[in-house]
């Protein structure tokens, strides 16, 4: 594979292959003070990819309301944290795994679920619920059937095995997703407010531990793949997709939570996209320290892995942590009890640099702060979406046959029962599911174990509205989650989001993005309903055709007393129906 030092140095072609622009490369030269080697270039390329740096979206996400009395941690950590009283905290986030799921639906969806769960238990929470928001192409498109089957089986396969109930979600079909399906997964976890874990490395000379599966050559450049649009050749160029290992994930959850009950962990971060690179750099950057890693110590699945491959590998089910000196043995014991690979691979330093050694040679020595702080932050041109004609109710012709109309509505794939989907998900494991997909209610209800309170959770988005009018559509998405939570008797607290759009380099797409955020934010402020975590997935387009703008939102609310809530369960014949609102 890639040598550390290409014979001709870093050529413009190599820079381009890494998805970096000329001007981005100039900044790298300036900050490093010399020509980077290939490993260093690879590290910059993933850190500065759209996926990791949010370079097209960062300035717009900054506008969101992110605080309220109940917010303990807003965006910026692995997941958002809210206070639900009595010392209990709910930690949650939603994330996309769109591109991998299109290529390998089962594994793509499965690893998406695995990744979002790691974001949540990394912070000290036991995952207690999973949801998903899925968009597929037209039902009669030749690829749709197998994509649906694979994605649903993958979500179930992973969540069921780990033993976290999948309690809700949404599934839509539209030809706009024919070439780019959306697989958004949300995980909700429960922690104690005084035992939440963060990713900032602290102190100098503290040991850095690697825990979980061994590193292989999985998904190298996956992060850059998620930042480039598809074309018809994608089938040829597609890189390896990771295989999920839910068994190891389950062991990781139990082991991490066991160690978290002690005071051994200073900081912890899962290795998500761009694995070892982003986890080590984020930890160091947030803590204002340097990091030195000995790559020979990294548990490896394959022989002859280069530093480049190790740093860019996206092998799943791995975590990085800074351990309290003196607690190394305790940490080893816990992870070995659970049969996980564990190794001390480095220390925190005071150099402010990321230093990597391999075979006793230094193979990377770059300053950390530019990787994070100087990441590109673009103000991409955007044009507002042309307002569409408003369709007044009286313009819609009255159906001649109401039975037929009703039948057509009910058999529409978007409206039809999703039982085929949610029956493949274990919705009851953990013994706290009060309501889930099967009742068809507006939000799932999960009791807080051992208490008489519960949280309500929902995911929503109506892309058609966002397409017609991004600002109004954005408002509607947030408002719908709010209504769905209140409809079951919960007080809405906060949301997470997954913003799925096309190519941000096109001003009209960027216009949809900016418009949706504006609308969402307006609704958030009106309801005092902040955004505490989220994810952006751009470049969802094929041959220049973008998906409909799809800002999926996951809302969480609190039911303080399970004596008072409502579901659709138990409706009886002869009861009165009341229509509220306009």
């Amino acid at each position, binding site marked *: 594979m890639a040598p550390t030092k290409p014979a001709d140095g870093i050529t413009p072609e190599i820079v381009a292959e890494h998805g970096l622009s000329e001007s981005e490369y100039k900044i790298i030269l300036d900050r490093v003070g010399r020509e980077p080697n290939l490993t260093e270039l690879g590290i910059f390329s993933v850190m500065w990819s759209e996926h990791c740096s949010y370079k097209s979206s960062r300035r717009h996400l900054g506008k969101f309301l992110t605080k309220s009395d109940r917010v303990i941690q807003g965006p910026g950590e692995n997941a958002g944290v809210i206070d639900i009283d009595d010392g209990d905290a709910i930690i949650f986030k939603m994330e996309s795994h769109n591109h991998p799921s299109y*290529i*390998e639906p089962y*594994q793509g969806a499965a690893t998406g679920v695995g990744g979002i769960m790691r974001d949540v238990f990394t912070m000290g929470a036991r995952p207690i619920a999973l949801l998903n928001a899925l968009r597929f192409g037209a039902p009669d498109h030749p690829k749709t059937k197998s994509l649906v089957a694979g994605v649903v089986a993958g979500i179930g396969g992973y969540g069921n095995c780990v033993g976290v109930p999948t309690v809700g979600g949404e599934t839509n079909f539209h030809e706009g997703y024919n070439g780019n399906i959306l697989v958004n997964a949300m995980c909700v976890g429960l922690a104690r407010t005084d035992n939440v874990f963060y990713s900032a490395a602290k102190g100098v000379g503290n040991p850095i531990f690697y825990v979980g*599966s061994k590193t*292989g*050559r*999985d998904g190298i450049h996956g992060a850059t793949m998620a930042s480039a649009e598809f074309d018809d050749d994608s089938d040829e160029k*597609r890189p*390896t*997709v*990771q*295989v999920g*290992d839910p*068994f*190891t994930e389950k062991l990781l959850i139990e082991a991490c939570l066991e160690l978290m009950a002690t005071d051994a962990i200073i900081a912890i971060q899962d290795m998500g996209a761009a694995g070892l690179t982003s986890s080590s750099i984020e930890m160091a950057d947030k803590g204002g320290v340097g990091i030195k890693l000995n790559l020979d110590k990294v548990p490896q*699945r*394959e022989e002859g892995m280069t530093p480049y491959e190790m740093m860019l590998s996206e*092998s*799943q089910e791995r975590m990085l942590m800074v351990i309290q000196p003196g607690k190394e043995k305790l940490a080893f014991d816990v992870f070995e009890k659970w*049969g996980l690979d564990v190794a001390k691979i480095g220390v925190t330093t005071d150099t402010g640099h990321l230093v990597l050694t391999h075979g006793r040679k230094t193979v990377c020595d770059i300053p950390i702060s530019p990787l994070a702080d100087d990441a590109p932050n673009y103000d991409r041109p955007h044009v507002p979406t042309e307002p569409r004609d408003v369709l007044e109710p009286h313009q819609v012709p009255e159906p001649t046959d109401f039975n037929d109309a009703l039948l057509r509505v009910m058999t529409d794939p978007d409206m039809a029962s999703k039982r085929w989907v949610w029956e493949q998900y274990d919705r009851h494991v953990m013994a706290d599911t009060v309501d889930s997909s099967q009742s068809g209610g507006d939000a799932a209800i999960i009791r807080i174990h051992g208490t008489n309170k519960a949280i309500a959770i929902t995911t929503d988005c109506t892309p058609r509205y966002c397409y017609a009018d991004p600002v109004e559509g954005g408002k509607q998405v947030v408002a719908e989650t709010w209504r769905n939570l209140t409809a079951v008797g919960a007080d809405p607290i906060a949301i997470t989001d997954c913003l799925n759009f096309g190519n941000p380099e096109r001003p009209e797409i960027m216009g949809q993005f900016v418009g949706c955020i504006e609308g969402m934010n307006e609704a958030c402020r009106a309801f005092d309903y902040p955004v505490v975590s989220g994810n952006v997935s751009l470049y969802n387009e094929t041959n220049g055709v973008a998906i409909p703008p799809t800002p999926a939102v996951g809302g969480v609310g609190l039911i303080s007393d399970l004596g008072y809530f409502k579901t659709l369960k138990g409706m009886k014949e002869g009861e009165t129906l009341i229509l509220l609102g306009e």
Partner: protein
Amino acid sequence: MPMIARVYVGLKPGVLDPQGRTIANSLNDLGFNEVVDAKQGKVIELRFAESDAGRDAVEARVKEMCEKLLANTVIESYRIELDEE
């Protein structure tokens, strides 16, 4: 002469094989310490309707089945064996 095809589908080298690893660990736990590695794959045996398609034609069709359904070539590779029944 009716034919039978055996398709062997396995993970490509380098792709994580959690099942194989767990099997190897478990064999070691049971005292089979000589096992250093295990891999798990699938065999799909196909029987065909009577026809006078030649060997090459059958093989080409089975190859198509593999590409379309039996294997996901992103992570799996396959091998075809044809036999007379």
